């Protein structure tokens, strides 16, 4: 099984709808990172969470970290076609600050 499980694997929503993507770790999280990727392109950094209960927002995207559950959620409010892409959670599971372990990603499609 993967160390970082993302769900759902894919998501199709109508424009204007809210959605949530989850990321659960089987190991202690020393830092949780959310990235967005357009197909075949590099990763765009969205947010980093470090402390349990931490919540960060950028425009219509909010990410939360539940340290006890070793879980993070990414919530998009009033989705737009520009939100479409692959969302990846990455985590420092070793406390080494040298490598990120990624989930397998969530493919988001927003229908106009």
């Amino acid at each position, binding site marked *: 099984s993967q160390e970082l499980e993302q769900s759902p694997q894919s998501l199709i929503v109508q424009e204007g709808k809210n959605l949530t993507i989850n990321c659960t770790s089987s190991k202690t999280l020393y830092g949780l990172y959310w990235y967005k990727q357009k197909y*075949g392109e*590099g*990763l765009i950094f969205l947010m980093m969470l470090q402390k349990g209960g931490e919540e960060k927002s950028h425009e219509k995207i909010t990410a939360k970290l539940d340290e006890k559950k070793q879980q993070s959620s990414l919530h998009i409010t009033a989705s737009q076609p520009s939100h479409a892409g692959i969302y990846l959670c990455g985590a420092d599971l070793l406390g080494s600050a*040298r*490598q*990120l372990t990624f989930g*397998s990603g969530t493919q988001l499609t927003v229908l106009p």
Partner: protein
Amino acid sequence: DAGVTQSPTHLIKTRGQQVTLRCSPKSGHDTVSWYQQALGQGPQFIFQYYEEEERQRGNFPDRFSGHQFPNYSSELNVNALLLGDSALYLCASRQISTHKLNYGYTFGSGTRLTVV
């Protein structure tokens, strides 16, 4: 301000051949990491270079090797290519002296390697 630059953008190689991928980090960055991303999967850490030395390595065979130059640029070499090496190879850089954690990584757009 240029971000992370990778070359080439696409590459087709034959099984058994060798390949070299190149990465120029973002200006001011001194640490370079390489990741392999297979289709439909998340990136997997290959290794990280800092001060021209490999500092950490992921679960990849010795066929994967790298180098970092004095100007902080880096190369990823893969020998004896297998069909399974087909993937998007991503380079990420950051300035290690100002970031204790993984915050601040900038990723390049990647090199798409196809092994036939």
